[in-house]
């Protein structure tokens, strides 16, 4: 509820319509009403965050609904981020012998 009242840019009624369109566009369905409500809250939060990114961006980027709008930051990071690149590249364990150019 807190998320919905705090973050929902559009009026709750509109938000649900927007969310319905999102589900159709990205073929999303949720296993039960509680999961639906939770995803709706995450969706509202992400839309509000997109508006904030829009304000902060110094370029010409536009932010808003994407295929990931019903995911939390953590879920998104787990799905798409690879392990964090180290501060410096680990030294290569083995030197590649110089080969004749052009050979396989």
């Amino acid at each position, binding site marked *: 509820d807190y998320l919905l009242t705090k973050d929902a840019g559009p009026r709750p009624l509109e938000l649900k319509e927007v969310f319905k369109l999102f589900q159709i566009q990205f073929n999303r369905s949720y296993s039960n009403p509680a999961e639906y409500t939770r995803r709706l809250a995450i969706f509202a939060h992400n839309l509000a965050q997109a508006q904030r990114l829009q304000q902060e961006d110094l370029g*010409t980027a536009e932010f808003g609904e994407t295929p990931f709008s019903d995911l939390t930051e953590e879920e*998104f990071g787990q799905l798409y*981020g690879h*392990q964090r690149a180290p501060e410096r590249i680990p030294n290569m364990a083995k030197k590649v012998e110089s080969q004749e150019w052009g050979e396989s």
Partner: protein
Amino acid sequence: VPPTCDWRKAKNIISSIKNQEKCRCCWAMAAADNIQALWRIKHQKFVDVSVQELLDCDRCGNGCKGGFVWDAYITVLNYSGLASEQDYPFQGHQKPHRCLAKKYKKVAWIQDFTMLSRNEQAIARYLAVHGPITVTINMKLLKDYQKGVIKATPSSCDPQHVDHSVLLVGFGKEKAGMQTGTVLSHPRKPRRSTPFWILKNSWGDGWGEKGYFRLYRGNNTCGITKYPITALVSLPVKKLPISCPP
């Protein structure tokens, strides 16, 4: 450095947008796209190389749990090349499969790989002359990105925390006033032309600008200069058969 460069406009150099789905293999897809593009530029041959080989034969054996582009290049060197996507197709399954590289004929190979200097001008020059390279960035602003040029500051997108590898395919400049009305009315939006990088993502073509996105060029937005890495394919030729379309 030419004012603009877009390898997507060159015929058969950049393959279609991949979708890593639930497999954290952006590093393997970026490296495969890099090798594929260079092979097509240098050898004028259309190859489609295997991402799955990079996942199954990686020395860390992490498969879909994440990795680094430099490990992908080491795999290609260790197995003397990459099989075709057709022979060794992308599965996207969570646990790594046994490495089958030795079973298949190699359709592309590399002599080495290298990291470019952390200078956006030098990167642009290399990109225009030799072809697309891989970069690793902080992906924090990509989740809600729809279109346009992202220009961030170190506080809004930490350039030290890079966690997503993609292919750098070109650069350009967006003329002032090309933005939509809503954006222009905003005090923070640029009034001058905006230099940008063009990057190929691996999240499907339903995301971003048909699977691509653009980052501001010139202030190391989201750490783009931290790991500019590319394969070295065939002999350095004096004059490339083709150069980057403007």
